[in-house]
């Protein structure tokens, strides 16, 4: 379209944004990871990371808990999304799912401080059924519970959309060909809604690696995620080099996840070819 080259000037703010706030920060964090606390060039950060058991242990823990959170979230969300998609007033229910995401994550975490506290409502219930009170706050399970709680809406939304996109005629066709409900689900519905599940996993797993505020407020530092370590290095010990090194590890983890969950529509740009 020869006459319609819309002015590239309009795009300048956007290109500036890509340059300054997308490329530059990533480049800077990689660059920074090669400097020690005294601003000298070094490879020690990486050496430390790969040789000290603590960092590797922490990474494994972080990935393990993120996996657990993702798994539990998926387990709860898929049936919920499926049931919701078959309801009459599903738009309204969808809004009700979205509404809690508008309540600040810290307020929700704060609520659990109250709920899980020594004399809190959870312990009152445990006392009532005769197995409490127990230490609930600042445990690994409380971290898992709250993290799962916070991520549920982000898993439900993409799955719900994928199920809605599914034409009912596939289900009818499958039934027509003699499949049972379970076979229909396992052979037709699940594979066709897999893209929604994948984007749900993407939306839940990566943030779960870095929920440092929850590890502090709920987990009581029983679990140190990659995010917690980065926050610690940047804002407490001021060792930006080491913090950046962990950041680079996190970025690599993220890219791996993206490759796995984007397998059906690979965008050439995010892989060096």
């Amino acid at each position, binding site marked *: 379209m020869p006459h319609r080259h819309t002015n590239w000037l309009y*795009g300048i703010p956007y290109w500036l944004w890509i340059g300054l*706030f997308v490329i530059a920060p990533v480049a800077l964090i990689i660059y920074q990871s090669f400097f020690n606390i005294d601003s000298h060039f070094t490879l020690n950060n990486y050496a430390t990371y790969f040789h000290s058991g603590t960092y590797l242990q922490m990474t494994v823990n972080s990935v393990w808990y993120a996996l657990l959170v993702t798994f539990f979230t998926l387990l709860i969300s898929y049936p919920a999304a499926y*049931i919701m998609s078959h309801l009459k007033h599903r738009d309204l229910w969808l809004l009700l799912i979205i509404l809690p995401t508008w309540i600040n994550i*810290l*307020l929700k975490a*704060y*609520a659990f*401080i*109250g709920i899980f506290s020594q004399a809190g409502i959870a312990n009152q219930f445990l006392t009532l059924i005769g197995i409490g009170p127990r230490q609930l706050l600042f445990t690994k399970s409380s971290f898992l519970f709250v993290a799962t709680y916070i991520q549920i809406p982000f898993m439900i939304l993409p799955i719900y959309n994928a199920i809605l996109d599914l034409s009912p005629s596939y289900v009818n066709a499958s039934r027509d060909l003699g499949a049972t409900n379970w076979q229909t689900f396992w052979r037709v519905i699940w594979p066709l809604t897999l893209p929604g599940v994948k984007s749900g996993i993407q939306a839940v797993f990566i943030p779960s690696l870095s929920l440092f505020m929850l590890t502090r407020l709920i987990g009581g530092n029983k679990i140190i995620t990659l995010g917690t370590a*980065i926050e610690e290095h940047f804002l407490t010990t001021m060792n930006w080099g080491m913090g950046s090194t962990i950041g680079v590890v996190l970025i690599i983890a993220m890219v791996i996840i993206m490759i796995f969950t984007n397998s059906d529509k690979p965008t050439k740009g995010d892989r060096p070819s």
Partner: protein
Amino acid sequence: MKKHRFSWSHLYLVLVFAVLYAPILFLIVYSFSQGNSMDHFHGFTLQHYQELFDDRRMIVIVINTMLIALLSALISTLIGTLGALQIDKTTNKLTRGTILSLNNILMVSPDVIIGASFLIFFTRFHIGLGFWTVLLSHIAFEIPIVVLMVLPRLSEMSGTMLDAAEDLGATNWQMLSRVILPFISPGIFAGFFMALTYSLDDFAVTFFVTGNGFSTLSVEIYSRARQGISLEINALSGLMFIFALGLIVGYYFIQQANQHRLQKHQKSGAV
């Protein structure tokens, strides 16, 4: 048989919703409780709301948060829409893929990475931490969601529609203002809305780039929550819930009204 299964699934859904809302309701209930703990209800009071309204520091922080949210949403909507228009023009598949991947980096990056890298960025360029760094950061992480909301509307627009506008004499500017923008306005609106919620929701990025003098609600709640329970925060969450509820109900009714008006419009046209 079928009915039976139905009720089980409904029970499950009700349970999920109960768990989703219980902590929020819990917070609100205790915002009316006397005393200073969230373990037993000690009688109704509005004292915590009173404290909240008397808390000058908190009021300033609420205003700051709103200001950052509105400004960043407006600016990111503008930049994101322009960006989406540019991406839509890009027909080369490789270029387009690259731009989209770059666009999505901030969408998928963990908050701490965004926060830490922005912190390095601002420090390196000697930009003092405070209002401006928070505003810039919010604009930065809101732009990609605006692009992602606007782009599908743009690709829904058939190419011949622009041909038609040009064929009828429209200039580039007229094509933009009379055809493209009205057509993609639902996407722009949704983008603005998402940007707003992203801003209000953010904690981690702000936490990294905020410095000492400036604070937003989530940062403030974090530092207060680390010190233990204060029912003033409950009062605050009560207000925020009502605010969110108001927004979502408003959004729902605007949508309903839009549909209604459209139908009415259509009916009067049919006569």
